[in-house]
């Protein structure tokens, strides 16, 4: 009973942190849409959005405002409540995933230590898996509730693809967890920061490669955006949607991309660690700030890679996608896991 005693200061601290994380991820998602168009323009030798504000920087706000003020359309034949629930679930699942990511070490304000992580839990990485597996419902419910054959087909494709790649992703991760021995993301970062340790990418290059491919599939990004294949399916599972509900589906994709980048940076690239810098020499607040900046730089690089791939690699065919996930990545991830286990045990008992 006493263990759950209510601590109002802690409550407010966490509430502020949660608000910053949620609105921060929404802000980054907003600007990812802008960046995507700029990157696309750059790669296709165009200029991209440049009317709203300098360099088109106000474009995301114009788009957002437009989405809010658009007419809500719920088709006559749709299931009304499920139709509303679908995008809500997609967005909620995207927003809650970031709860266990350590953004930096901790701040010290007036003697109070504030960890820059919403919750450091024992099973951190599994929580992310749980939240990701909920994202599937957003797609399935939305596509089914629309009562449109195209939407339904796209939703089935999207859901099957997401669940198929979850497996290889999980097994690739196990190999990493064998190295770390913990599921807490904070501890995983601290292990990588410790002197004499390198980032996990050095120990798990193949695991990371499998992981990033699966992340692309989970986020429904090209080359795996089969659920939005407009030449076969019109627009995808959200084709009956308009207004903010459509906005949620599009936005959830960018929030997912942001969180996925943060997860990859945390697991394989040292999280908020700055290479060749001993953070313990700095004062805690400066170290925390440097840490956030370092993590953000890594995240931005990953988001750029997402976009780079989108405008470089054409879409897979659906049978190729399934083949890759089940027959190639899954055995490869299993082999990676077993080989990692053998190498670690051999080094341990040498």
């Amino acid at each position, binding site marked *: *009973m006493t263990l759950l005693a209510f601590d109002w200061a802690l409550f407010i601290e966490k509430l502020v942190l949660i608000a910053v994380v949620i609105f921060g991820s929404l802000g980054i998602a907003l600007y990812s849409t802008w960046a995507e168009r700029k990157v696309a323009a750059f790669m296709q030798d165009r200029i991209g959005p440049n009317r709203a504000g300098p360099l088109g920087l106000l474009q995301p706000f114009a788009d957002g405002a437009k989405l809010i003020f658009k007419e809500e359309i719920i088709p006559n034949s749709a299931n009304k409540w499920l139709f509303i629930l679908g995008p809500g679930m997609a967005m909620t699942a995207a927003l809650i995933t970031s709860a266990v990511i350590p953004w930096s070490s901790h701040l010290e304000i007036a003697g109070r230590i504030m960890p820059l992580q919403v919750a450091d839990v024992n099973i951190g990485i*599994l929580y992310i898996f*749980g939240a990701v*597996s*909920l994202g599937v*419902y957003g797609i399935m419910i939305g596509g*089914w509730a629309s009562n449109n054959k195209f939407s339904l087909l796209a939703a089935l494709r999207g859901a099957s693809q997401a669940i198929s790649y979850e497996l290889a992703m999980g097994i690739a991760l196990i190999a990493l967890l064998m190295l770390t021995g913990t*599921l807490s993301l904070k501890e995983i970062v601290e292990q990588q920061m410790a002197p004499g340790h390198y980032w996990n990418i050095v120990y798990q290059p193949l695991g990371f490669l499998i992981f990033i491919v699966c992340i692309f599939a989970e986020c429904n990004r090209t080359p795996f955006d089969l659920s939005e294949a407009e030449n076969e399916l019109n627009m995808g599972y959200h084709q009956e949607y308009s207004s903010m509900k459509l906005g949620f589906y599009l936005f959830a994709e960018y929030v997912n991309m942001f969180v996925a980048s943060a997860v990859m940076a945390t697991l394989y690239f040292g999280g908020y660690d700055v290479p060749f810098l001993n953070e313990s020499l700095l004062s805690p607040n400066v170290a925390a700030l440097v840490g956030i900046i370092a993590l953000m730089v890594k995240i931005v690089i990953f988001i750029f890679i997402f976009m780079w791939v989108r405008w470089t690699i054409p879409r897979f065919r659906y049978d190729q996608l399934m083949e890759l996930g089940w027959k190639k990545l899954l055995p490869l991830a299993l082999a990676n896991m077993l080989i990692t286990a053998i190498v670690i045990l051999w080094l341990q008992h040498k």
Partner: protein
Amino acid sequence: MGITAIVFWILSALTLFSAIMVLVSKNPVHSVLWLVATFFSISGHYIMLNAQFLAIVNVIVYAGAIMVLFLFVIMLMNLNTKTEMKKNLWMKLGGVISGGMLLWILISVVRTYAEQSKGHPKIASVNTGEIGLIKNLGHVLFTQYALPFELCSVLFLSAMVGAVVIGKKN
């Protein structure tokens, strides 16, 4: 009433409400979603018992995998034709009897347990148990229960064969 008790009652109310909604809903897809909500609130209970790994596995496997399968199955059905089975009186009577017997057993279990532990009541260890943490659980699983663990994989093998036999008719 401490915060633990408040959280417990809220979670219990949520669990019961969504479980009832599973039965009451006319649309099978609604039922599945209420079942997902039920699993979530049960996971909340697991967390209160400090069975953290169990809580998240409940979400991943039941809410994330099995319920997706349920949704697929419902979408496989033809929901246009109203194929609600004609429930005759005997079926209803059978349902009431078997449900009542289950309820009877549950109540008697709770009652005999309460009588046995009279004087020195045992309360579920809220927040203190450590066996539900992944490290301890894994240790027990791979030392004490290694054989059942291996037998699990045989079970999975048979399940896979079953799935393929049902799914592939050639």
